[in-house]
Every structure is written in structure tokens, then in C-alpha cells.
């Protein structure tokens, strides 16, 4: 579904990602793990079109999307749930959700999806008129996810969804992520905290200072002692 070939992304002259090759197959959850500054967010932003690759190609459903703008990519079914949630603090909860479906013109279906999100997250419905900046951290994360789903994505890019959440909420979040996959959405997941991510994902890439160091099926990577020591904190 998504194939990244020899991707190099630079901030000025400094490469943030160097010669990375990645593949995400339809229906999979793929995790992109690594320490802070390893280049995970950079890869997601490049897939979304916010950053431009210095070299390499990104293929989505067999087509090179290098020259597509972010809105065009949204229309093709790619959605990014940004790090730190990136919700619009000064807009209401419902306006945030509505913006997720900005590119869609099927009003009735949007209304249906809105109700579906409210059924999934009853807290959001209770607070739909509230300004999003006043929500708790967990609620904001739910809102960011809900907003991502409002675009009816085929591929959803999740950037550190568990950041700043209490352990109980993290578990809830991950059971929800597993549910999204069941509905047929492909997921590329970026995490610094690897333990939860490894439990749900099919395939893993470990990134270190912009280079893919290790890759493999989740269980295999999980069982490698050297990987555990270096990347997963023992």
C-alpha cells in the first residue's frame, strides 16, 4: 500500500532521515520505533507531504506521490494524527471533528461518521460544544484520533499517540487502535515507548539517527536480546 524507497530528508544540509526503505502492506499495523530525534516524525511528515524528500520516492497504492500536496494526499486516503495531538485548541470539539472531514462533500455520510465517532467516544459527544483546549490530555488524544477517522482514511499515520497519557489510558488507546485495523484501515504507528506498540503491530522498523537499523516481524524483533537491550530499554 505504501512503499518508501531510498528516502533521504534534510533540514537544511543536515539529513534527518538517510536512505530509508519501508513498506506498509494493506491491513497491517506497522510500527516505526526509535529514540527521540531518530527521524520518525520526519518520515511521517514526508509521507503526508509537509516535508519534501531530498532523495528517494514514496509510492502509495503503486503511484509515486512525491509531488502531491498535503490536501491531495488527504483526498487519496492518507491521514496523519500529529504528535502532541495537534488539535485546534480554540475550536470546539465538533468543529475539530468536522475539519477532519473537510475534503469530503458527502454531507450525509459525514453526519453518520460523526455519530459513529460519538458512539465510540461518548466523552466527545458530551463535550462537543466545548473548546477543545479545555479537554483533558486523554480526551484530546481521542479527539485527534476521531478527527483522523472523520476523513475516512485508508492509511492512518499515528505519531506518538500514547505521549503523555496515563498507563490505563494507553491500554485503552491501543485496544482502540486494534479496532481501527479490524475496520480495514492500515496503520503506520510511530512510538518512542515500544512495549505497547510491539504488542499490536505486525511488522517493526527500528530507526536510529535517521537510519533503519533493524526490521522484522514483531515477535521476532521482540525476542531478540540485543534489540531489547539497545532499543527497548532492557
Amino acid at each position: 500500500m505504501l512503499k518508501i524507497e531510498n528516502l533521504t530528508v534534510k533540514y537544511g544540509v543536515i539529513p534527518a532521515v538517510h536512505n530509508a526503505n519501508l513498506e506498509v502492506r494493506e491491513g497491517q499495523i506497522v510500527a516505526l520505533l526509535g529514540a527521540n530525534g531518530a527521524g520518525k516524525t520526519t518520515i511521517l511528515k514526508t509521507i503526508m507531504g509537509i516535508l519534501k524528500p531530498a532523495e528517494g520516492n514514496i509510492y502509495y497504492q503503486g503511484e509515486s506521490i512525491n509531488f502531491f500536496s498535503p490536501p491531495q494526499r488527504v483526498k487519496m486516503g492518507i491521514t496523519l494524527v500529529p504528535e502532541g495531538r495537534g488539535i485546534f485548541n480554540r475550536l470546539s470539539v465538533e468543529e475539530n471533528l468536522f475539519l477532519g472531514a473537510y475534503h469530503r462533500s458527502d454531507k450525509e455520510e459525514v453526519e453518520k461518521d460523526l455519530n459513529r465517532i460519538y458512539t465510540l467516544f461518548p466523552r466527545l459527544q458530551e463535550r462537543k460544544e466545548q473548546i477543545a483546549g479545555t479537554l483533558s490530555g486523554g480526551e484530546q488524544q481521542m479527539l485527534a484520533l476521531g478527527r483522523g477517522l472523520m476523513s475516512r482514511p485508508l492509511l492512518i499515520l499515528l505519531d506518538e499517540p500514547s505521549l503523555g497519557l496515563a498507563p490505563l489510558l494507553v491500554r485503552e488507546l491501543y485496544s482502540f487502535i486494534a479496532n481501527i485495523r479490524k475496520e480495514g484501515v492500515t496503520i503506520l504507528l510511530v512510538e518512542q515507548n515500544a512495549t505497547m506498540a510491539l504488542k499490536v503491530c505486525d511488522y517493526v522498523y527500528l530507526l536510529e539517527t535517521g537510519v533503519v537499523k533493524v526490521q522484522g516481524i514483531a515477535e521476532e524483533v521482540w525476542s531478540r536480546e540485543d534489540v531489547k537491550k539497545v532499543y527497548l530499554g532492557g
Partner: protein
Amino acid sequence: MFSLGYLLQQTMNGVVLGCIYALLALGMTVVYGILRLINFAHGALITLGAFFTYFILVRLGIPLVATIFLVLGFGGLMGLVLDIVAYRKLRGGPEVALLITSLGFYTFIENFMKMVVSPQPYAFKAPSYLTTIFRTSFLTFRTIDLFIIGASIAIMWCFHLFIKKTKMGIAMRAIAENLEVASIMGIEINRVISVAFVLGSALAAFTGFMWGAKYGQISYDMGFLTGVKAFVAVVVGGVGSVPGAMVGGVILGLAEILSTAFLPTYFSEYRDGIVFAILILVLLVRPSGIMGVKEEVRV
């Protein structure tokens, strides 16, 4: 001493001027909210709108309703041209480049107008149905005063609904808060920015018309100080806040007129200075303006 009638009369004059500032401030605050650009060229649209209406309404005698639509359309078109020609290529560069360009564009239009219409002020003889005088026991006013107040309230109400309820309005607020995230929602940033310029410039051209009809005189440089004062209204009301721009405009208009009306006459020459004194006072007490939100630190 001053009578109640005098106070009422001056208040009304202040509200009329305030409405003009408020309409200008609306367009400025929307553009500022999205691009962080103090759009000096906004002032040029006042001048252009004023002369445009002078030629079609006063010279050619086109009916009022048609004039209103034409001047709005003309202003909107100029805004679109300005956006595409002057600003679009500069986005993503340093904000100061936009600022200098807008100042440059203002200067260009001012000089262009000086060349085309001459440096002499023009008498704007509004049609008699706009200058009919009404006298009541307290107030004396003309049709144009009622027109300005009525049109301004209607425009502000429409603008409020537009920003709050429409898809485009929500997109504008989203871009103002976080441009990058707005773009990954699928919002076509350039289109929304163009709409902001078109709306703001249409309003600015319209205020040029109101200014001419109300004060009876227009000149090639009329837009500068008016534009700057409109920006003061934006800051006083709270940068980026649409209700703030309206409140700021009306406060500024009232303060300007009432200070000249009630201070000893030798102060009246300094009414522009008084406007800026108010700005400084408001900012000392409320640095983010009357209805402003604190700017978040952007990473």
C-alpha cells in the same frame, strides 16, 4: 457647558466613524490572523474604493444599490490580484518580507493615484438621497449616517456568521491557529487566504465609499492614516479576534470624536495623537488587547 444633546450628537458621530474603523479592522484582523501580516496595502484599498465610487456614483450617476455591489466586487478583485501578484510567492519566507511588500504596495498605489487623479483632494458630492438632513430635538443627522451604521451592523453580523458557521470560516480559524495541521486536514491554504484577502479588500473599498459620502472629500493619500488607525483598532480589540476588531473600531471612533468634542479646542489638532495614546494605554493594561487571546509560543 455641554448639553445632553451635544453629548448624544458627538456619540453618534463617534459611532459612525467607529463603524468605518471596525469594517476596516475586520479585514485586517482576518489577514493578520492567518498570515501574521500587517497589511498596509489595506489602506490603499480605501483610496481605490473611494475614487472608484466617486467615478461611478458621483460622475456617472449609477444607482446606489448597483454602486454597492460594484464597489464590493471591485475591491474583492483588487484583493485577489494583490494576493496573487504580491504575496503568494512570499509565503513561507520571513514574515518581514510580507510586511515590506505590503508597505511597498501601499506606496505604489498611493503614488499611482497621485499621478492619475492629481494630488488635489476631490470633493465627493454624494447624491442628495444620501445627504438628506434629519433634525430631531436631540440629534441632527443625514441619511448617510444611518446608512453607515445600518450597513456596518449588517456586514458585521454576516461576517460573524461566516466565521462561526461556514466551512470556509471554520477553515480560516483553523489556519489562524495552526497552518501545518490545517493543511493536513485537506484545507487548500492558498484558496482560504485568497478568500480572506478578497473579503477584507471588498470591505476596505466599501469603507472608502462610506468615507467619501460621509466626509465629502477624498484624496490620493486618504488611506494611509485611516489604514493605520484601523490596525490600531485591531490591536486595541485584540489581535486575531473578530469581535475584538469590531469593538476596537467602535472604541477608537468614539474616543477620537469625543476627545475632540470635549477637550479644549486647541487639542483638536492632535486627534490622531490621541488615538495612539489610547493604544498605548490599552496595551499597558491589557497587553493582548481587550478581547485578545494570549499568543501561544510556537515551536
